[in-house]
């Protein structure tokens, strides 16, 4: 509403000038107010009048508003600023190949293993057809794999998984197939649990450093926050109750509601195996605070050190604690090297969580034909025992070589006993002992040494200079190549 000053010139005289301008202004003001009140409410500014013909609307030059996506969709499509994803993308543009592209970028940023493919391949070539097309009379019957089956997974698969998990977790814990739901990979498993255990705006405590993928898995759609619980090299990055306590109190002060603790064991990216004592401490803490515990045990079968792996399921089943707050995630992407198959597990001691998760599986279930292959694979006990033994041995051998190579360069690694990677202390190569220095080193490693390793910043590590290096997709001859590149880079810093 504009204040116009009309008629000033009309009124002569000193007081008259003032009054002469004020009165018309007031009148005008009230006129505009009156007219505004009489005007009909404004329509949706994006809505066009119905008189527009179709041809008008669809022809160029008309100002039709651009349709928008939801506000929760907006951050999803943005290019990621996390070095974890940047590194993975960069490798795709110039991937190392020991025959055809020896100058390419060597991938150390993806936790996958190809060490036992030969064994898997042989099994598949011998058993695939049979396992897929199982039918009573031996004839190919597509209806057995084509039709709808319960989304939570065939009972035979859950039984096979229960047995497999028990085997690889030391045989001291048994899993009940009716507490289990099969998912299309570990990614939906963690998301479904987040949907079931926490409301939008609630939070999980998560020890750092942690797997960068959790940010997407948990935050994309559930609206659940992740609150870091910082761990230090002095504890070999093992979470302590005092750190959990502190993080929880700070969260409460901020008004954040904590629904649970999420951690991985073996841990990613450090590769720690949590001790029985630590697991008990975590569960005791959770019980005291009445929150959930989610244990991501996806690397449970990739344990190569001397430390014994203990599943949270074992602690939960001991009778000492209320087990309904314990939930476990597992999958075949790491231990069995078949991420493409998409097979994961939610295991929960809480009946209502299992029931809700079952119903949510319609959004992320495993195709029946893949389930049949997996039933066959996981129930082939002789093969599985042989495979897991070879898998562990080959990781161990590769780990020794890799760590030794780094040691020769004066670069130490954290103590680790599981996973497909090691946690490397490159702080001696930093120009400044800071996040900035670490990111500069990450960039140099990527562009000069042409190695993609995941910097600790991407994993929310509170101490600069740490990098996760995955070594289970490397051939032995790749290792000296890597070490030489790092050596040359280090040299270039000194000069």
């Amino acid at each position: 509403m504009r204040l116009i000053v009309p008629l000033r010139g009309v009124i002569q005289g000193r007081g008259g000038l003032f009054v002469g301008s004020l009165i018309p202004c007031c009148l005008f003001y009230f006129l505009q107010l009156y007219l505004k009140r009489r005007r009909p409410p404004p329509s949706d500014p994006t809505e066009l009048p119905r008189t527009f013909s179709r041809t008008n609307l669809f022809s160029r030059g008309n100002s039709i508003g651009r349709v928008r996506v939801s506000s929760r969709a907006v951050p999803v499509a943005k290019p990621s600023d996390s070095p974890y994803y940047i590194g993975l993308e960069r490798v795709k543009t110039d991937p190392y190949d020991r025959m055809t592209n020896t100058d390419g970028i060597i991938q150390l940023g993806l936790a996958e293993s190809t060490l036992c493919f030969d064994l898997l391949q042989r099994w598949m070539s011998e058993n695939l057809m049979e396992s897929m097309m199982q039918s009573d009379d031996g004839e190919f019957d597509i209806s057995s794999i084509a039709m709808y089956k319960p989304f939570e997974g065939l009972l035979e698969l859950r039984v096979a998984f229960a047995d497999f998990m028990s085997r690889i977790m030391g045989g001291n814990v048994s899993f009940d197939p009716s507490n289990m739901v099969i998912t299309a990979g570990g990614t939906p498993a963690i998301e479904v649990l987040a949907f079931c255990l926490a409301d939008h705006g609630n939070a999980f405590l998560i020890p750092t450093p942690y797997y960068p993928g959790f940010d997407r898995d948990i935050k994309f759609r559930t609206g659940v926050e992740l609150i870091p619980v910082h761990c230090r090299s002095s504890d070999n990055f093992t979470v302590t109750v005092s750190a959990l306590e502190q993080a929880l109190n700070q969260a409460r002060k901020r008004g954040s509601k904590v629904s649970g603790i999420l951690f991985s064991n073996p841990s990613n990216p450090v590769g720690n195996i949590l001790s029985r004592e630590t697991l008990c401490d975590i569960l005791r803490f959770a019980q005291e605070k009445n929150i959930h515990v989610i244990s991501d045990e996806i690397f449970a079968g990739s344990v190569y050190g001397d430390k014994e792996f203990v599943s949270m399921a074992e602690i939960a089943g001991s009778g000492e604690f209320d087990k309904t707050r314990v939930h476990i995630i597992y999958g075949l992407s790491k231990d069995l090297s078949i991420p493409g198959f998409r097979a994961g597990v939610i295991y929960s001691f809480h009946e209502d969580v299992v029931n809700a998760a079952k119903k949510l599986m319609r959004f992320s279930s495993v195709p029946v034909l893949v389930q049949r292959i997996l039933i066959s694979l996981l129930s082939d006990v002789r093969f599985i025992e042989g495979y897991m033994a070879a898998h562990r041995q080959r990781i161990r051998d590769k780990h020794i070589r890799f760590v030794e190579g780094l040691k020769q360069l004066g670069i130490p690694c954290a103590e680790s006993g599981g996973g497909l990677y090691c946690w490397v202390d490159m702080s001696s190569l930093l120009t400044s002992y800071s996040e900035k220095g670490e990111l500069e080193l990450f960039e140099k490693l990527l562009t000069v040494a042409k190695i993609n390793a995941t910097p600790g910043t991407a994993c929310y590590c509170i101490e600069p200079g740490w990098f996760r290096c995955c070594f289970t997709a490397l051939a032995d001859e790749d290792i000296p190549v890597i070490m030489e590149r790092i050596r040359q880079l280090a040299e270039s810093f000194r000069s």
Partner: protein
Amino acid sequence: MGLPLMMERSSNNNNVELSRVAVSDTHGEDSPYFAGWKAYDENPYDESHNPSGVIQMGLAENQVSFDLLETYLEKKNPEGSMWGSKGAPGFRENALFQDYHGLKTFRQAMASFMEQIRGGKARFDPDRIVLTAGATAANELLTFILADPNDALLVPTPYYPGFDRDLRWRTGVKIVPIHCDSSNHFQITPEALESAYQTARDANIRVRGVLITNPSNPLGATVQKKVLEDLLDFCVRKNIHLVSDEIYSGSVFHASEFTSVAEIVENIDDVSVKERVHIVYSLSKDLGLPGFRVGTIYSYNDNVVRTARRMSSFTLVSSQTQHMLASMLSDEEFTEKYIRINRERLRRRYDTIVEGLKKAGIECLKGNAGLFCWMNLGFLLEKKTKDGELQLWDVILKELKLNISPGSSCHCSEVGWFRVCFANMSENTLEIALKRIHEFMDRRRRF
């Protein structure tokens, strides 16, 4: 949050709390739509072993063309097609491949298949195809992307009961119905659209889009071209999205009777019009492969494609499935034959059931697609109310041992309509079902 609410959300004498999503009943599995399934599970019909059991006519599954698939897969050496033509190295790629872009060859195959179904009247760009583990996941994913919690999608009634769960449960989005009735064969009118939009506005709910199923479930009929044009017009004027779930597009009895929204968009250059249109498809109905979990979002909006791709990490299609189906779907000779024969067989089934019902004195909506017919039993209702309809449904379940879906579970505003599936059984079983209906109607006439 007060104590009573907390106690409601933690049950079984333990006291750790669950989320609203976990305890909500938006999954809808307590409705009659699903209750009938339970009755079937407990006493399933079997030709030899249980001839008096419940015949499942509530599940829209297509089993009429399995033989065509079997012959194809046997002939083409399934093992070869499993790993692609490369044999052993193929396994390595398969096992490791978890890229949310999906296999290029598979996307090309899907695009080609979708084009064939539409008789080449629209082109599909493989790079706009986002793969999901089933159409259920595709619809949910699109809803996450197009609408925020408490926003709404307008959906014409009657609609697929699963939408209540798929579009609302985790997303927090509402459905506002666009009421359709038999006076014009349940087609969507501009008045009904406007009315639904206004209803939402009056309740202070922001409408983000319209979601239709074309051909319609449960009507079993295609949406007319003019209606599609009106719909797009409406969405442009309101500046909202248009989602067309075309999961039954390959099950239209006469190809010429189907107009896809893709055809309408094909002739439009204006990006601001095109980019509000998204299509959902799946292999579960047309190919009869729900167990494979293959769905897709096809969007004309670059941002939606990018976003959907990233979100599809939660619902990836197994690399196994992609390899296996890529060669089959790009075999144009096979797909042309399959589509043609499948349509023909569904049409014959439809004719059988509609004729059979007519002889029993029961009329159906004139349909031309899908795996079901929309039957009018309004004249049998004692009380012309939802309760009356459910009573009749219960009688049909308990006395005739037929599980059919009541219109109220599809939010139909007229009582007395029922959806009856016919493609998930043998011809014999269909005859038995019709016989039971005849006998029932005879008995009623005698009273």
